[in-house]
């Protein structure tokens, strides 16, 4: 007789303004298994997990826990039912200590008391840390911890709350390959105790490595649920995407003879926290070349891109576009020299979210286009209209506010703007993050077109597949330093460099 599944979702439907995130989804996970939820960005995985963990309420459908229907009004109810989520963007109070964060969610055992006793909690945290290989100092304040450590705190929190079902949302996005491996071991330990782990990811290799079964979501619907052992990466990929994607194979043009359009020498820059993020980086990009910087997020890529583009101050070093030396910390100087920058944080930096498309198109060009101090608003509108047509941006008109656009269309807007200048070099930082497949395709096409036209492209990305498909040369960034990859097609060499090791020749 089969026991009821640990959790089951039936007919879950959820609407957001303008989009149907989950469409009658059926899902179940058993005790003692790692069940992966696989899908592209925007397929509805996060929404589903938020419903399961009580943050969202479904418009239709049921949730069952151990066979009995439950109704979650808040995350509290889900936690009480033993379902706990480890979020992609951590939900921790930075100013509190680790122990205080754990006390915060605790309703069972010692947590029922009105008075709090940090000492007891600290002891428990230490024990859990040893048992599950997640060592963390319970007295440390969260703002002092590294990203990997913060994730450990989140997992410890779930364990402390005696969660039987853990949901992890893209946990390896911020981990090195080694840390990811350690995480998988921890997950296997937990599952052996009869817990259930629901593992959300869009990375095929991880899903293959750690899960027992996998459910594939596409456009809000469940496409398939299969035992992992029976599925091949190709079959999973085509289920995820819905068609076989033609991999763009870049024509490897020989660009070694081209002019150097971007040169960074001995570049040093600090992070927002005050630590050194970029340590003496040397880079050169030639005209028509795509140079890719690979690496796990958090190794200084963001600071590197911002320092070169002038958005961030440089502690030391020089940046040249062509023959012109750029002034540090001056984005206008970089722009006028012919440097375009597609930033990693689309909504926070790439556009002014509540301003119109017209204003966003001219975000950098407004000075050049103005007559003295006066703007030419009619021409601004025209430029926006032209961009909307040329780049096929889906928007009601140039007056639309930028953040009403979908992620893909926002990126098209950014590209339209950056390509509008007299471009010599383009820095693209994680340009396809969070985009659906067709948008990714479009962005790649534009990058290739730019390279064909002689623009030097510096592509910074965590997506190794993307890099392998597009790049002429690859360097790997690890802890602020950059190493050249000798054999461009050797994935192992790249992986080793990404983890900070030295490749064997």
């Amino acid at each position, binding site marked *: 007789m089969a026991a009821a599944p640990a959790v089951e979702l039936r007919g879950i439907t959820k609407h957001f303004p303008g989009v149907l995130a989950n469409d009658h989804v059926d899902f179940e996970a058993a005790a003692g298994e790692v069940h992966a939820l696989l899908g592209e960005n925007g397929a509805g995985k996060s929404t589903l997990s938020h419903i399961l963990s*009580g*943050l*969202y*309420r479904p418009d239709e459908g049921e949730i069952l826990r151990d066979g009995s229907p439950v109704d979650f009004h*808040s*995350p*509290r*109810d889900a*936690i*009480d039912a033993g379902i706990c*989520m480890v*979020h992609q963007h*951590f*939900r*921790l*109070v*930075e*100013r*509190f200590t680790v122990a*205080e*964060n754990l*006390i*915060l*969610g605790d*309703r069972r055992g010692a*947590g029922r*008391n*009105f*008075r*709090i006793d940090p000492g007891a909690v600290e002891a428990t945290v230490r024990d859990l840390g040893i048992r599950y290989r997640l060592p963390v100092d319970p007295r440390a304040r969260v*703002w002092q911890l590294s990203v990997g450590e913060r994730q450990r705190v989140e997992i410890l929190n779930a364990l402390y709350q005696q969660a039987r079902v853990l949901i992890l949302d893209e946990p390896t996005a911020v981990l090195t390959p080694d840390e990811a491996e350690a995480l998988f071991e921890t997950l296997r330990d937990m599952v052996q105790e009869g817990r259930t782990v629901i593992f959300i990811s869009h990375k095929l290799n991880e899903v293959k490595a750690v899960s027992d079964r996998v459910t594939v979501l596409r456009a809000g619907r469940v496409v398939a649920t299969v035992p992992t052992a029976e599925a091949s990466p190709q079959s999973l990929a085509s289920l995820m995407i819905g068609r076989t994607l033609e991999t763009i194979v870049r024509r490897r043009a020989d660009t070694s003879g081209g002019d150097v359009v971007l040169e960074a020498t001995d570049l040093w820059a600090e992070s927002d926290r*005050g630590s050194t993020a970029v340590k003496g980086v040397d880079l050169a990009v030639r005209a028509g070349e795509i140079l890719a910087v690979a690496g796990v997020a958090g190794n200084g890529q963001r600071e590197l891109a911002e320092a070169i583009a002038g958005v961030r101050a440089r502690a030391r070093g020089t940046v040249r576009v062509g023959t012109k030396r750029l002034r540090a910390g001056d984005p206008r100087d970089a722009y006028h020299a012919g440097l375009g920058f597609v930033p990693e944080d689309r909504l926070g930096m790439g556009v002014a979210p509540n301003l119109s498309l017209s204003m966003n198109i001219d975000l950098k060009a407004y000075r050049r286009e103005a007559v003295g101090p006066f703007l030419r608003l009619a021409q601004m509108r025209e430029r926006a209209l032209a961009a909307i047509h040329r780049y096929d941006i889906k928007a009601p008109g140039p007056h639309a506010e930028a953040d009403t656009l979908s992620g893909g269309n926002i990126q098209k807007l950014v590209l339209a703007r950056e390509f509008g200048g007299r471009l010599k070099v383009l820095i693209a930082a994680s340009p396809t993050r969070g985009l659906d497949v067709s948008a990714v395709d479009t962005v790649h096409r534009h990058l290739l077109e730019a390279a064909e036209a002689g623009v030097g492209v510096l592509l910074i990305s965590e997506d190794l597949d993307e890099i392998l498909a597009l790049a002429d040369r690859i360097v790997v960034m690890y802890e602020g330093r950059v190493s050249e990859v000798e054999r461009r097609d050797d994935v192992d060499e790249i992986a080793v460099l990404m983890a900070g090791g030295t490749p064997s020749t």
Partner: protein
Amino acid sequence: MNNSLLVVLIASGVAYGTPLLFGALGELLAERSGVLNLGVEGMMLVGAVMGFWTVQRVHAGSAVALIAAVAVAALAGAATALVHAFLVITLRASQIVSGLAVTIFAGAAGLSSYLGNDLNLADVPASHTFHAFFPARMQNWPIVGPIVFGQTPLVYASWICVVAVVYYLARTRPGLNLRAVGEAPGAADAMGINVVAYRYVHTLIGGALAGVAGATFTLAITPQWVSGITGGAGWIAIALVIFAFWRPELCLVGAYFFGALQALAPELQARNISLGPTELWTNSIPYAATVIVLVIVSSRGGRRRLGAPAALGVPYVREE
């Protein structure tokens, strides 16, 4: 010795500082939940007028009348705070504009005057007032006499409040939850804490304490009602919370310090001591000092360790 300038200043400082302390404690709790309440002055005035009205109307012994008056003042303050809370928490209006609207609505040119004049409360002495609690014999003891034992029960109540708030924040679950709500409402929500409820409750408590602060004026300090009797104490209370780095025990110190400053100029005058433009300095120092504290807590090192609750002033929206 009990008539020396220092002792008198400290004793007066405690007396004048008590409404500041009540107001600051209330504002501190509201701000710790993430709600900035600029309407404290208005709430104090409403508490002042309603407390006075109660004491004139209740025909009972002194103690009963006074306790009823304080209770009514607290309720009036809380009711006013309810408007602010509804606007900024449920309707997500700007906390700053809403707070100022409350001050205008309830302030010296608004509801409190409306009520005071309509109910004919002006120019009449209070039927009952708070007197010093301890016997005169104890009040004459050196130094501690006037400072500690010469105060009204409201002062002692304020001490109890300070202790309660300190304990609440540092050692209890709800206090921890409150701090989380003010620092990272998203995290608190994910942990199952009802952010909206915490904000409402603590904003209302803030209003209640502001009401009590107002009552302190009409029932203890100047036992009479005049339009605008608080004279800006609400604003000083807001400043005080910052000056005290959002810590209740420092609110006590700060309140008495500011209170003593208020007493300084008249005392010097009474003793015919002239130190130049004293009033200019003593009245400006609380505000100038707060500006300096603000700059310190905003600096990069300060913000993490010392500063305001991180989510102060930002409406919380759970993306549904």
